[in-house]
């Protein structure tokens, strides 16, 4: 996984609450195993009813053509488990989300992909949002996970909280599966214990004579 230490770049504000994954990454009319994640990015929000691009939409404005930081409201990323809703941000170059709060599953999907999810409390968020709106994409913001600060035009540095284990995961870009495979002995021991204690959990076999038509 790509490590995250710090970034400098344009912050774009989409200040609504409860932005769901059907908005972030709508299911395309034409489905593919290898979809165009750049095109998918807020596909409907960025378009008029006739599917033409809405030039006035914030995501279509030239100063936000290559954003690094997405700023949003409460419960960002609610809805489905689709990881494409993170991949579409990454395809746009966004590797940090600053929200008032985030959905559990979405936040985990961010961490799995080296995208830094920052949750700011209401008053701090409000002040930061105002700075991002004022900057209007013309000056970069800087996010530093080592010092846990956001800096940029329009005010003092902002300190943010993040769980120590999430921070470590991102800073070191750890191979998540590799880390768990280090516990293979413990997994085998659990299976062994459960085979004795609750054997039905360790065996998913079909009872004879239960096949359809049997």
């Amino acid at each position, binding site marked *: 996984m790509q490590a995250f230490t710090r970034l400098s770049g344009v912050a774009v504000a989409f200040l609504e609450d*409860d932005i*769901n994954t*059907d908005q972030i990454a709508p299911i395309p009319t034409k*489905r593919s195993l290898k979809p165009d994640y750049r095109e998918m990015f807020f596909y409907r929000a960025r378009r008029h009813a006739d599917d033409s691009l809405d030039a006035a939409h914030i995501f279509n404005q030239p100063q936000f053509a290559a954003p690094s930081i997405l700023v949003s409201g409460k419960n960002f990323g609610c809805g489905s488990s689709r990881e494409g809703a993170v991949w579409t941000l990454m395809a746009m170059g966004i590797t940090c989300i600053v929200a008032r709060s985030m959905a559990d599953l979405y936040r985990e999907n961010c961490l799995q992909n080296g995208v830094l999810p920052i949750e700011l409390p209401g008053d701090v968020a409000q002040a930061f949002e105002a700075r991002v709106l004022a900057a209007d994409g013309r000056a970069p913001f800087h996010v530093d996970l080592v010092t846990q600060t956001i800096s940029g035009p329009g005010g003092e540095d902002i300190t943010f909280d993040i769980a120590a284990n999430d921070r470590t995961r991102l800073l070191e870009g750890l191979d998540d599966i590799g*880390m*768990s495979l280090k516990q293979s002995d413990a997994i085998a021991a659990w299976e062994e214990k459960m085979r004795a204690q609750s054997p039905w*959990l360790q065996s998913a076999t079909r009872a004879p004579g239960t096949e359809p*038509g049997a």
Partner: protein
Amino acid sequence: MSKTQSRKTMFDKIWDAHYVATRLDGRELIYVDRHVLHDLHAPHAFEKLEQASRNVRRPDLTFSMQDHTVATKPGRDENTNPDGAQFQRAMREGSNRHKIRLFDLTDPEQGISHVVAPELGLVLPGATHAVPDSHACTVGGLGALGIGCGTSELEHILATQTIALKRPKRMRINLEGVLAPGVTAKDVSLKIMAQIGVSAGRGYAIEYAGALARALPVEARLTLCNMTIEMGARSGFIAPDDAVFHYLAERPYMPRGKKWEAALAQWRMLASDEDAIFDKEFDIDCRGLEPQITWGTDQSQTIGLSGALPALDTDADTRLKLERAYAYMGLAPGKPILGTPIERVFIGSCTNARMSDLRAAAALVKGRSVFAGVTAMVVPGSTSVKRQAEAEGLDRVFLDAGFFWGESGCSMCAGGNGDRGRPQERVVSTTNRNFEGRQGKGVRTHLASPETAAASAIAGHIADPRALMAETK
């Protein structure tokens, strides 16, 4: 038994029994007893797993389902939905390579994973049950801990048979009251969100309790737990009881004989201890509850069928949100919701497409016709449900009334198979999400019970099923 042991919630009992180890980063590895994959997300995970030269640790505990991309047209094959074929083929090939039992498109037990897994007894009380789909929480209705996951987590489970999680907090939602005829578990879940909102569950695992939860039939419990993710929680469940054990007994993948007896003894210990402490509790009074329906673009924007659309006299932020929802939905404050003309009805999905749902809808449809100009669809939750419904003649009831009667799959819930509404169409849908554009560009989704959906299909507008029930008697 020590005092601390006597104060455990059901969640803690399941979690602690599945704790394997704590990783270097502090997250806990929780063992996954059953892992059910689907065609939309598994192909990507298979590819990544193979790129890393890793194997599936327990293919014998893993099952594959074709549900998200499958066509519903009678006589379908994998090319009926041309975009779906690549997903279904990748699913088939990946499952074969890794020796995972696949319920393929033509399998007599194919269907939506959250419907099929309970039917087959792949869900066990007290077990962990992961699906790379947010509605994994459905199986909590049988007392299992459903865990919805993303694609990276899916790959992690394939490789390790565990999931790395931070222990959530515990919430209990106490449901009191007795449901009147025509009022269902779906109405209860919508009522909960009208009261607590769509993000109150973030960071929690939710136990549904109280007299109302205990009295729900098993399939209704699956409906209630299905909607848990819409409150922001990854898991929701109800303590298993004799109704659940009766439902599960003799299912194909259930233990038999002495093992069944031993399992039963353990399952009877799963319920939260009487003095267990929850981090958060909500009391939802469902006495006198009427059928509920969403009017807006998230599930908290719900009203009772006799209600009027909410006024805008609120704080500025909320007002903006309401105005936006009204604009998208083509509705205005103050008007009654009953009588709003509709163009489409969808009865299906992991929320409401089991036998009890189809029977309830058919009872209202029987001998009546879909209102002229309304497109109405029934998509059974599984091929087994479809077969049973046909044995009971329900397909004829729906077809004679003018409904489409399809093959099983996720269908119009998210439109992943091409089943979608048209722009500005108003749909009464038994699914779980009324988000903008989810059922097609510009489609206006109203979530409701199968009864309300059926009554609305007949009336041609949003209608109260209880009126039709009274006529039926």
